[in-house]
């Protein structure tokens, strides 16, 4: 009985599985005590980012936004932690469960300040005019990236397997996992005003 074929096939399958599953299932339990989230220097259209006036000295400026990649785009644990942080940091207060309230909706296709991970990171860290606070000094880098991943999952950007299921709460919307992918309107309109 030739048993080499099944064994080889088995190893190949396992190797493939390892590659596919690793990223989604990683649980980073210890985040290094990195500095508070650094503020990138990016400009989007004519809008001046962040609070009026100089940035506090203790917040250093970091590398350009384009260089920032999300470490957690496809990580299920991080997206789930982002969902928890969304509630704990009271994002619900302005953005609702993603449908928007006094703040814009986050689960739709419209991104005023861009929908790429780097853009969303900058929005959270710097704050935005008309009420979006700057969380730069209040959240670590790591936590901001988790929130970024979660916000993107509300419009189904990461793959389905990484997105969270429903919470054990009263249900107000479909879980992120069941959302259909929405195309992102990554850039703002040319004059920086809100699209109609």
């Amino acid at each position, binding site marked *: 009985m030739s048993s080499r074929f099944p064994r080889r096939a088995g190893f190949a399958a396992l190797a493939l599985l390892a590659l596919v599953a690793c990223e989604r299932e990683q649980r980073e*339990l210890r*985040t290094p005590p990195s*500095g508070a989230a650094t503020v990138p220097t990016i400009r989007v259209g004519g809008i001046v980012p962040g609070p009026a006036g100089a940035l506090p000295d203790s917040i250093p400026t970091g590398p350009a936004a384009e260089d920032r990649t999300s470490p957690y785009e496809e990580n299920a644990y991080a997206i789930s932690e982002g969902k928890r942080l969304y509630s*704990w940091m009271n994002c619900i207060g302005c953005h609702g469960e993603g449908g928007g309230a006094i703040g814009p909706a986050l689960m739709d296709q419209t991104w005023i300040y861009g929908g790429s991970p780097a853009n969303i990171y900058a929005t959270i860290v710097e704050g935005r005019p008309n009420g979006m606070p700057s969380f730069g*000094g*209040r*959240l670590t880098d790591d936590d901001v990236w988790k929130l970024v991943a979660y916000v993107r999952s509300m419009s189904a950007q990461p793959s389905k397997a990484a997105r969270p299921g429903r919470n054990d709460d009263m249900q107000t919307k479909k879980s992120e996992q069941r959302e259909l992918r929405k195309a992102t309107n990554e850039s703002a309109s040319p004059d920086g005003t809100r699209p109609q």
Partner: protein
Amino acid sequence: MIRRLGEVAFAVLAAACGGAPQSPLNPAGAEAREVLTLGAIYTALAVLTYVLVNTVLVLGLRRRRRTVLPEVPEVAPAEEDERRLGRKVRNAAIVTALILAVYVGATWAVEAHVTSSPSTRPITIQVTGRQWWWEMRYQDSVPSQTFITANELHVPVGRPVVMLLQSEDVIHSFWVPALNGKKDLVPGKTNRVVFTPREAGTFRGQCAEFCGFQHAHMAFDVVVESQDAYDAWVAAQRTPAPPPDDSLAARGQQVFLSKACPTCHAIQGARAFGSRGPDLTHVASRQSLAAGTLPNTRGHLAGWIVDPGRQKPGTRMPPNPMSGEELEALLAYLEGLK
């Protein structure tokens, strides 16, 4: 008589355990004592049964060893012998059933007794379990007299305590072995456990239902003290934190309020109203930090604040890097929160 024997037994055991703070063999409450007595009797019965059954087995093994051993098996053993054996087995079965009937009856009696509602007016404490710490909310008929603390219980000797158990997330289990058996904190329902402390001392409780990464480090302290000491403690807990008394502590309060701390923590009397993490109004008066994981010393507090993930990987508290000056000030402030 049985009760006295039981008392002697667990006095011996307690001595043997060297006053272990988290052991059901070292009971300090009325319910835990009853349960230990019952458990000790059952254990003695179990040991007796084991020895008896296995002695009969060993005797049976030795019985016909010396006879000549032909290979021919006894295909049809003698009827009279079989009947005699049958009677013995039947009698053993009947004795077993009778002992078990008494066993179950005694179980029912003790269980009914330890779960009965307290006769005198109890202290009611609502415990909410979260991953991975305990919020304790002391109830009072006057709403302004209720107060919140975390990871530490104080109760007076002799008065029954009713714990109302709730959970914010997953199933946890409230267990103070010295005082009573455990009860789960199940989301969506409120469970109840009653205990009546009889001895003063400091005991330890620990979560006893697997609840995630840091289930191993979800403990709490229980201080049983005299009525006077308890009243003093309650009065102190009801008072909000006073304003900081020196400039370093004032700077520390400033650090506390400007960093991420108020997002999750509350300090009554300062402008911090977070409810996601333990209430810190009287944090300096507690015996331990991080849900019974670390002793409450300056060094441990500093390490916990700056890098909680080192002690409890997976914890919800993020790292809080800060300069040495900020940390000094913050520690001075927190140490004043007695």
